[in-house]
């Protein structure tokens, strides 16, 4: 467990990062706030829900994007959209909690099916559920409006603020992303999270200590799905629309890529992965065109980046960062005792 030591350089860096994120609207343009960071926070939350299941629980779930998509659809169906013949137009304070509850239930049921399997079979079952969700929304016109989905889904003008303006939306997404991040960090050391890590390491022993392993895993799916559901609500407000493609096979796989590229070891990993993904997604096209290549090959660049990360650092960017620090630390240790005294380091493992 790598907790942050109070007063260490790590804490200072965390405060600095927090400050930069809070003051971002002062120096960043609307496009960066809305399209880059707004989107990255949302994708980061969905990938965080996968990180919680995979990193702490050892369960690779491909259903998290579908859970977010489900919440997005529910907001459109129960609330307002341009498709007035389907949307019920209920007020946001019913719609949003209901959407989160239904999506969480969906994720929990998917988990209940998946938890009795291990490894590749968990991936296959959750992928099957994700595919089923995609095809169902595309073919069902009565409730999900088929291929075109819903457009004109806007956040409620709460407190007289238009939450879809770049600066308000930036803070809205930042608030929930930070909330989800600290919640996962906190729960990882609470009995629920600790037991989940125990189950990851050794399910048989956890049974022999009195834990109901199956129920605990399902509860983990419920917890992770609630985070993904909140992200799904933000996602439908960001795009103002939801369609089958929102939770298509491509986005489902992208969440896995984001989580793995960022690193599954700690909750910050998914957000690092998300910002890398969004930057690539946004600028790869221009970059390729400037090289005289065809712009639609941007997926190739993302795929190549994924390959490089998985090949050289299976624990993602986080792992790369940890090893670099380790190397610097061990180089320091080899220096003279005087040097260490000046640097104030003990030289032993922290």
């Amino acid at each position, binding site marked *: *467990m790598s907790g942050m030591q109070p007063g260490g350089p790590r804490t200072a860096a965390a405060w600095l990062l927090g400050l930069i994120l809070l003051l971002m609207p002062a120096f960043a343009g609307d496009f960066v706030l809305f399209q880059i960071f707004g989107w990255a926070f949302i994708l980061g939350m969905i990938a965080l829900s996968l990180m919680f299941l995979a990193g702490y629980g050892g369960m690779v779930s491909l259903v998290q994007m579908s859970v977010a998509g489900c919440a997005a659809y529910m907001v459109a169906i129960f609330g307002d959209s341009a498709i007035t013949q389907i949307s019920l137009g209920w007020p946001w304070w019913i719609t949003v909690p209901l959407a989160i509850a239904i999506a969480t239930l969906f994720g929990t049921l998917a988990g209940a099916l998946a938890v009795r399997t291990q490894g590749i079979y968990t991936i296959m079952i959750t992928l099957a559920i994700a595919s089923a969700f995609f095809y169902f929304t595309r073919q069902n016109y009565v409730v999900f409006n088929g291929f075109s989905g819903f457009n004109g889904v806007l956040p409620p003008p709460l407190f007289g603020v238009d939450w879809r303006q770049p600066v308000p939306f930036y803070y809205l997404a930042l608030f929930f992303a930070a909330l989800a991040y600290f919640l996962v960090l*906190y*729960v990882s*050391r*609470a*009995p*629920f*999270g*600790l*037991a989940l*890590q*125990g189950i990851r*390491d*050794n399910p*048989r*022993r*956890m*049974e*022999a*200590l*009195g*834990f*109901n*392993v199956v129920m*605990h895993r399902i*509860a983990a799916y419920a917890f992770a799905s609630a985070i993904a559901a909140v992200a799904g609500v933000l996602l439908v407000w960001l795009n103002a629309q939801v369609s089958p493609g929102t939770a298509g096979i491509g986005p489902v796989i992208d969440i896995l890529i984001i989580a793995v590229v960022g690193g599954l070891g700690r909750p910050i990993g998914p957000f690092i992965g998300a910002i890398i993904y969004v930057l690539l997604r946004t600028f790869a096209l221009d970059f390729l065109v400037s090289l005289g290549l065809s712009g639609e090959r941007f997926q190739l660049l993302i795929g190549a980046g994924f390959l490089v990360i998985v090949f050289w650092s299976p624990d993602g960017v986080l792992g790369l960062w940890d090893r670099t620090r380790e190397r610097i630390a061990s180089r320091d240790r080899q220096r003279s005792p005087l040097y260490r005294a000046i640097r104030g380091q003990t030289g032993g493992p922290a």
Partner: protein
Amino acid sequence: MREAIAQRLSATGNASALELRGVSRYFGALSAIEDVTLTVGAGERRAVLGSNGAGKTTLFNCITGDHPPTSGTIRLFGEDITDFPPHERIRRGLRRTYQISLLFGGLAVIDNIYLACRGVARARYSMVRPRRDDAVMQAAFDLAHAVHLDDVEQTPVSELSHGQQRQLEIALALAGAPRLILFDEPAAGLSPTERRDLITILRTLPDHIGYIVIEHDMDVALQVSDQVTLMHNGRIFREGSPDEIESDPMVQEIYLGTGPDHG
């Protein structure tokens, strides 16, 4: 010694802690244990002896539910637990240790013990971090002290010595309020000093805690048990007091190997 045993057994009443009736376990066509009938009184301490493949660990797996029996019934303190999942049996006061330590390598020693204490308490799904003065956390620290692991409380389990890991293995089985503990070769790989510590730990357990111990080391086994069960080829071969088993000529010939070629 005898009086102490009699006292302990009468203090805990007559209800038997564990009752196995005709328990068999097959792996495919292969029988690991066959028609085992065994009664262990409350607070009784029993050693199970037998050569490799005699079915000792399978017997434990049947009792804890890791591998439920193919046929037969198991009663724990009078309750039929044959079809219970392992965690339900544990919550009723059953505990076990494993022959090869099954610990949480990535977690610190105290986290391992805390999980064991939490598993048999309530609030297993609590999302609130325990404070240092939390009752269950306190129980974990006490337990770490009891098995002499307080110096390494915060050390990741993967960095412990073999002996320390075996001690932790025992600590996990002592969490909560155990009534019957199954020790699977607790002395395996321990140094002579560590063995003495182990014997002390076992002999100073509170009287109401009974246990069954699988042990290859006869010295250890006979010192820590009131009753001895000898298994052979998946069946119970002999039962008796340590003295009776030690002096039984059949046992000596087959298991203890006191023949001329055994030195």
